[in-house]
């Protein structure tokens, strides 16, 4: 296992993919359901956050999740961040199935210890 020092951002790719597994676990194989979508967004976001925290890195996390029913409508998302690019990073996961889209954005901001 490699040693990760603060400021070494080579762990970003590995860690920031965890939300994908969370999405798969919670809504994989399901169809869009108005009654449940509230619960789904909450679980995806909480589950991603707890999984990220378990990695034990000294970061503050912001997790954003959008679930949209597929109806031919378009959606655009953009983000602009004012931070230290040597220590902070972000990741966006786009997931779709037959009936819905799910976009999860994770932002990780370093805490200096």
């Amino acid at each position: 296992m490699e040693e990760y020092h603060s400021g070494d951002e080579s762990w970003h790719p590995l860690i920031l993919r965890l939300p994908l597994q969370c999405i798969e676990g919670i809504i994989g194989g399901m169809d869009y359901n108005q009654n449940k979508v509230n619960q789904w967004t909450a679980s995806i976001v909480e589950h991603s956050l707890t999984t990220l925290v378990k990695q034990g890195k000294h970061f503050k996390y912001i997790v954003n999740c959008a679930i949209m029913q597929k109806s031919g409508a378009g959606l655009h998302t953009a983000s602009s961040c004012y931070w230290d690019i040597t220590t902070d990073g972000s990741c966006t996961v786009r997931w779709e199935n037959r009936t819905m889209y799910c976009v999860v954005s994770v932002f990780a901001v370093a805490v200096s210890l």
Partner: protein
Amino acid sequence: MSDMAKEKAARLLKKRGSLSSLGSHEVRAKETAGKTKDSISTVSYIDEPGQHDDNQRHAVQMENTYQLGPVKRFPAMAVNNILKDVLTSYLQEEKYEAELCRQMTKTISEVIKARVKDLMIPRYKIIVLISIGQLSEQNMRFGSRCLWDAGSDTFSSYTFKNSSLFAVANVYAVYYE
């Protein structure tokens, strides 16, 4: 814009110290696609380790500030007004069009970031997230959770709607100790 031109623009912006979200998905350093039985997924992130210059690889060692908390707190209400202002002025008369809205999201996120930076709140890192979508028969749900210090970090959010589109703007402010 060709791929080479895009990369050149990205490198230029990086050198200037600001990696602007000029590509909500165009300036992507790495993207991987996955496919399972009935779903498709893509993962993309802006920073690719190893693409930074060598002198930027080592994080600056900070000295202790001996401050217990932020000197000046982040004004969530003022930022709310900024968001209302920017979204209304840019989108009031617009109709949803794919190309227009793609450019609009990038422009608006940059404008909001600039205006929040103008407030000059020291030691705060800022994240602006904008989503613009078409109003049709669909339903959608946005959710957000943050792991941070609730005493010093905060966020501000605003939703705008007109007859053909909706826009959601989120600004997160994280205190750097």
